[in-house]
Structure formats: structure tokens, C-alpha cells
């Protein structure tokens, strides 16, 4: 198993990488911070990974995505799974006024992730097998005042990955969008994270890892979010808009 993880230092990616390491996979970790990637690589080797490579790259920069991806694949000696796990929550409040900040949230979470997804899709289609796994969010299911710019980017990503899954339908590869609910990671630091709706990154990683093998284009994580979001999506606007959620 050869796995490329884009945004490897995110908490969900770290936990997913450990599951791959445990089964003896070879990994390529891509991110901006060389020091952290190296620390992660050392850990994954002891946890069982056959080989761990790192590549320092700013994934939000959308230049030569295809060329960089081929470089990563050459470095790893082929690819079976690609996990796209980076993202920023951003400051919703500030971004409503500062359009540059808003564009940054959209660019990192949607434009760049879409470019990597499309580049990966072409590679997987050519080789006729493999999985593209992208971390989305339940925030993409309905715009809420707390995070709708981030949510809009994740909604766009969902449509894109869903489309790639459709494109793959009668071919070998898989494309999956994982939609975590609120997760206890550095991204949500400072929020009130008590309660049953908060999941650990280990839990999300287990679903991500399983879906990479099994497919199924949209996976809520944990699964119960499917039903919660069904209710939230079907609430009439007159009711939804009065709710403070």
C-alpha cells in the first residue's frame, strides 16, 4: 500500500497515517513544516510503516499541481491512496468584511483542494485503480452564520468529489468525501468541546481509513451526522433562520 497524504500534519491525517503505518504501508507526507513532517515520519516508522517519505510543499499554492503530484508519485514509487486532509477554518467574522481573508478561506479549502483532487483523479483513472479520499465537513450541508464561508468551500468540494466518484463509477478507482462533524483537533481549539457530538480525530481517522478501502462516495463521520444533517437540511428557512446553531 502506497499512500500520499496532502496536509499530513493535520490531526485527522496524523491519526489516519498511524492506521496505515500499523498495516505496514509506505507513506509520503506532504506539508509546509519540514521539522514536523520529519518528527511524524520518525514516529510512523516505529509504528510499522515500511517507508516514510516527506515532501515540503505549500499545497494552497495552485501552481503546477499536476507536475508536483507526479513528482510525489515518483518519490513514493507509485500510489494507491491519496488523502487530502488540509484545510483552514479561518475567521468567519473577519472574513465577512475582509474579502481578501474570505478569498483565502475559499482558495485553501476549495480551489487548491479541487486542483489536487482533479489531478489525482486523472492519475487514478489512468492507472485504473486507487482511492482519492478528501476531508470535507458537515459545515458544507447548510450555510450557518458561524462558518458559512468555510462551509461553502466544503460544499463545493463535496460536489466536486461526488462528480469524480460518478466519473469513476464504471471504472476501477474510488473517490470518497469524508464529512466529519465537530472534531477535537487543533483547528477547533478554544471552542467549548464538551458533549456527545464531539468526536476524537482517532474516530474520524478510523472511518477515513476504512472508506479509503471500501469506497462509497459520501461518508459522514461519525455516521450519525447523516441523520442530524438530514434534519438540519430539511428545516424550513423560516424556522432555521430563527435558530442559534
Amino acid at each position, binding site marked *: 500500500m502506497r499512500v500520499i497524504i496532502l496536509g499530513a500534519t493535520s490531526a485527522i491525517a496524523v491519526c489516519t497515517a498511524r492506521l496505515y503505518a500499523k498495516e505496514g504501508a509506505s507513506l509520503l507526507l506532504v506539508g509546509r513544516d519540514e521539522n514536523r513532517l520529519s518528527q511524524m515520519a*520518525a514516529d510512523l516508522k516505529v509504528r510499522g510503516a515500511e517507508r516514510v517519505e516527506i515532501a515540503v510543499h505549500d499545497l494552497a499554492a495552485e501552481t503546477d499541481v499536476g507536475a508536483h503530484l507526479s513528482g510525489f508519485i515518483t518519490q513514493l514509487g507509485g500510489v494507491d491512496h491519496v488523502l487530502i486532509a488540509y484545510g483552514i477554518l479561518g475567521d468567519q467574522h473577519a472574513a465577512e468584511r475582509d474579502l481578501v481573508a474570505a478569498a483565502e478561506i475559499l482558495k485553501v479549502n476549495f480551489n487548491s483542494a479541487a486542483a489536487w483532487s482533479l489531478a489525482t483523479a486523472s492519475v487514478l483513472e489512468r492507472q485504473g485503480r486507487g482511492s482519492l479520499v478528501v476531508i470535507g465537513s458537515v459545515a458544507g450541508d447548510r450555510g450557518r452564520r458561524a462558518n458559512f464561508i468555510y462551509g461553502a468551500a466544503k460544499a463545493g468540494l463535496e460536489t466536486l468529489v461526488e462528480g469524480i466518484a460518478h466519473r469513476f463509477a464504471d471504472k476501477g478507482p474510488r473517490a470518497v468525501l469524508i464529512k466529519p462533524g465537530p472534531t477535537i483537533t*487543533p483547528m477547533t*481549539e478554544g471552542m467549548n468541546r464538551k458533549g456527545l457530538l464531539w468526536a476524537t480525530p482517532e474516530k474520524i481517522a478510523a472511518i477515513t481509513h476504512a472508506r479509503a478501502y471500501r469506497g462509497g462516495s459520501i461518508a459522514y463521520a461519525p455516521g450519525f451526522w447523516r441523520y442530524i444533517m438530514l434534519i438540519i437540511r430539511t428545516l424550513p428557512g423560516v424556522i432555521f433562520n430563527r435558530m442559534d446553531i
Partner: protein
Amino acid sequence: MTDFAREEDFRSWGNVVQAAHAVARPFWRDQLTATVSTGRQQGLALLATGLRRSYGDSVLNPAGGMIDMTGLDRIIAFDPDRRLLRAEAGLPLHTLLDLLVRRGFFPPVTPGTRYVTLGGAVANDVHGKNHHVNGTFGRWVRLLGLLRSNGEELQLSPTEHPDLFAATIGGLGLTGLITWVELELTPIDSASMDVENIPFDGVDGFFALARESEGNFDYTVSWIDCLAAGPSLGRGIFSRANHSESGSPLPDRGNTRFSMPLDAPQFAMNRHTINAFNAAYFRNGKRKSGPARVGIHPFFYPLDSIGRWNRLYGKKGMYQYQSVVPPSVQYDATKEMLAAISASGQGSFLAVLKTFGDELSPGLLSFPMEGTTLALDFPNRGEETLRLMARLDEIVLAAGGRLYPAKDGRMPARLFQAGYPAWQAFSKHVDSGFSSLFWQRVSQM
């Protein structure tokens, strides 16, 4: 990550103290300096926390800032030839077991839970059932990283900054932030244990078995029925074991079967239920006595099979009481303590008795010393429970013994200071930017 956020209900394992804490959760080693300096700028006295299996207030610090180290759980280096493992301080023992046992290694010392971080194991200089062979955890620490509140990063070992090293081993996290630990591992031949369980009828029986077993068994421990009175006083099951030479190479799964979803009602733990449990446990132990081959988890970590078992003690929580008394008085003092507990009717079902060997503990505040240790837990019934423990304090004090800070939430300062004569030497090494509720309590003159 490097900021401190208020958490309303931050507790230790005993659940007696429920207080709000400011908590930071760093994730990478490069964030630690910023975390410490943020805390200092906000005037918070700091304390590291791991999986919070300490029972009392040694891991609480409501007026200050907690640094939750569980996000720092990476292995830094593993050298199987030299049997050395270096890892970040938040790495839990259960992860380590998962990685090491299949490769033929074992932690040199393990406490009765696998949910302890390396940093916590160092800060409490934990001991295990093999104390008479391997001594405490700290004896196997070859190097460690310590970040002081002034931003200084030190590497400590028995030869580099030896005084600060001795203060940090068992130093309850008060000498600075332990960032990583290098540990020497023990080789094992298999993932199985050859165990022998032997019922005994009283304290005399226990000491006879302990003497007889220590030469041939790496691990010894016993459970005692502390509610049994009269001639049955101190009856129990003695358990002794070695790593098997020819058992299974792969560890048993040891998954937690069941987790307490919420606090048990307060009446669940009363003298009748505990008495009935103890009597049944003794009968069952007697029936199943003799040699057996078992996995690592049931032998070392029986309680970890119930997730959040501390909730069995209900909303008011529980106290642990673990003492050690020196060999010259161990027999009489142990009997006296058991008689006092039995007379009070406030038994615990987790009473554990074990002899410590004469290996010197490396820390200034290490708990283990040669003698006999008795560990008990009591449901918190307020005054009544505190009175019983005060009675036990007098026995320990008269015997020249001491209590285990990791288990304690109430020992009087005079008992701490009498039991740990090096405490004043230790206090010179305490980092002025670190503190705990425990330390504020026991360091009062």
C-alpha cells in the same frame, strides 16, 4: 494550541475535586516554548497533565495553567540493539505495549494501568509488581528533556545535571515541563505470563509467600479482603508470575470490554456490596488457584478492562490510600492498618499488598522504599472517610512510613514532610513557574 482555554470540569481520577482549569493543548514539540511563555505572561503557575490517572490533587492546579501533553505522543527514536526508546512525554504506555511486545520488548516497570504517559510515569516514579527486581520506572530512564519556565531547555540524566535529574524523577512535574523521555527496555521471550495464584489466610501467610516467591518470580502482588475480620483478617490471593519463555509471540488484544457510561449511584458502594464482592472474589480466587498461562492484559491491567471504572464510586468520587512502611515494622503496622479498616467497616475492594525490594529509588521524592506497601480505595463518604484515613496516618507516621503522592488528595503536610525527608532539598529544584494543588498543600511549614 499554545493558548490556555478555561475548562469547567477538569478532574483527576478520584473525582473528589471538581474545579475549573485553564488548559493548553500543544500538539508539536516546537509549540512547547510558546505554551510555557504564554502561561507565564498570563501569570499562570504551570503543571503538565497526561491521562490523569493520579487520584488526588497532584495533577490539579485550578489557580494556574495546565499543559495537556497527550497531543505529544510521538516516538522519536527506537534502537532495538541498545534497547532504547525515546519518545515525547505524552506517549501512553498502552501504545508502547502495542508496538513493543510483538518485537520482544517490555517496559522495565509498569504500573497497574496502561493508561499512563511516559511523562507521568517519570513524574511519579511509578512502580510495578516487579519492584523487588527492577525497582522504580526512574531507574530505567537514561535521558530526559526538561523545559524550564525561563525558556531554558535541558537534557538530564544521572550524569548530566544529576541533582535536577533526581528532583525530576518522582518530582510530580514541579521541576519544569518534561518534554521527552529515553527509556531502557526489557527483553521478553513471549507475550504470555506464567502466573500462579495462591490463596492465603492472613498477614502471616502473605509475608511467608512473599519471602518464598521473591527469588524465583519477577512479579508478585496480592489482593486482600480488607473487610474480613477476626481470624480471616488479611486473607487474600497471592499472585506471582514470570514472562513465559514459550508463550504466544503476539499480545492479547486487551480491549476494554465495557465502559462506565456515567457515575454509579452513591449507594452502589456500601459495606454490604463490597463485603459480598470481596467474599466472592476470594472464593473464586481459591477455586481458580494454581498455575496458569495468561496474557499481559489480564495479569497487569485487570482494571483497565472496565473503561472509566472510577465512576463505580459515584458522584462524590473516591480516595486512594497507599502507604509504605519499613521492613522492621511492616508486619505489625500492616496488621494494625488492616484491623483499623476492618473495624471501620469502610472497606475497599481494590486492596493491594506488596513488598518492595531494597533497590534504591532514584528520585528525591520517589515513593517506593524497602518494606511493605498497602493500597486501598475508599468511596468518599466525607468526614467518616477522612477520619479513618487520619487514623491510618498515625500508624504510618509511627512506623516511619510514607504515602504515595500520586494517590493522595489529603495527606497533612507534617506526614508528607516526615515521610520525605529530602523534600526541602527537592524544593530548591522546583521551577518557580510551576505548581500544583498538592504542592501548595504539603509544602507549608
